């Protein structure tokens, strides 16, 4: 579409005529942005590997863990604002989880009201555990129906990117790539597609 003639060319040029950033400013901006890569790389590189939980000592064996006592209770909750990455502190749950098997692909950890939780991502759901002993199961965020609905939708709604939110899980389903973010709410967490930030896929109240 060419309609530049509707705006005086001199005016259009003036609009674009912004003094370039100095090399130092540009490099500083880019360096700061690149520093954000580490969490994302970690998120995608933990699939099917030993999971690092909330502490260096918290190691959850993945390739064959299975967690019983899942709770599909997913009460609604207020819209949230931020996702935080937890401090790397806390005691180990390795003994509790060791030997159990699951189809979990990936784990992340979050801190909510001072309590650290482990999020174990599997196909269409996220199992949530308190990340410190006694490593209690809190419940499951089940987004499988939302995933199916999205795969079958005729037209995509306008995207609303979750700006500033770290992607906590990436996966492929039926040939399509998806990314999830975990949004903190006042009393729990909400899982959303990273490109549809206005829609809760599943919510879970945390103790």
């Amino acid at each position, binding site marked *: 579409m060419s309609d530049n003639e509707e705006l005086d060319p001199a005016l259009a040029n003036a609009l674009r*005529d912004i003094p370039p950033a100095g090399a130092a400013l540009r490099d500083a901006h880019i360096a700061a942005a690149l520093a954000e890569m580490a969490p994302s790389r970690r998120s995608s590189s933990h699939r099917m590997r030993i999971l690092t939980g909330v502490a260096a000592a918290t190691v959850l064996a993945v390739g064959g863990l299975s967690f019983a006592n899942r709770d599909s209770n997913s009460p609604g909750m207020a819209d949230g604002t931020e996702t935080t990455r937890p401090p790397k502190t806390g005691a180990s749950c390795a003994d509790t989880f060791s030997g159990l098997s699951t189809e979990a692909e990936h784990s992340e950890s979050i801190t909510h009201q001072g309590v650290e939780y482990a999020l174990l991502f599997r196909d269409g759901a996220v199992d949530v555990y308190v990340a410190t002993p006694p490593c209690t199961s809190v419940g499951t965020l089940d987004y499988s129906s939302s995933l199916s609905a999205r795969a079958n939708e005729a037209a995509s709604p306008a995207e609303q990117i979750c700006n500033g939110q770290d992607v906590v899980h990436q996966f492929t389903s039926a040939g399509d790539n998806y990314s999830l973010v975990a949004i903190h709410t006042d009393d729990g967490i909400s899982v959303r597609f990273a490109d549809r930030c206005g829609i809760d896929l599943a919510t879970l109240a945390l103790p």
Partner: protein
Amino acid sequence: MTHDELLVRRAQRGDQKAVDSLLREHYDTVRKVCHRIVINADDADDATQIALIAIVRALPSFDGRSKFSTWVYRIATNAALDEVRRIRRRATPHDDQTFASIPVADGSAAVDAQLDVSAALGQIPEEFRVALVLRHIADLDYEEIAVILDVPVGTVRSRLSRGRTQLTQLLGNQAPTDSRQNLDTGGQP
């Protein structure tokens, strides 16, 4: 596959050099978008930084359904608009003319022209300003702008038309700044 698409694929696999290349390739336009929406240079550079960080964080979620550049400028626009809202929140009642108070310099013609454009843009309603920036700086078409702003194409057309008219009126006459501020800056498309 375009150069951008190749870089994006590498970047999504965690290739830092690819991310660096993508950021450098789009840096100038991202910064221009932020500067023309935010107006104040320091705040605009803050918005630029926030936009770049948001791009890196969201890169894994880019699914290729839009052009990468469109996706980037959407993030830059949102970062700039967030910065504008932050400025408004911190502004006192006496700062209502924040965007219209760009000083008019008596230096070089280029600097004067630069300040004139900034001052004029600052007096144009935000929704018109954003449409102008996306069309004439990011070089997006109406459909792309409509997707970014989540409004119908007709609304984009209307906002651009009104924005162009106001910008031309503001810069086309040589009236002093005070009288320029009498221009109608309100209204919806």
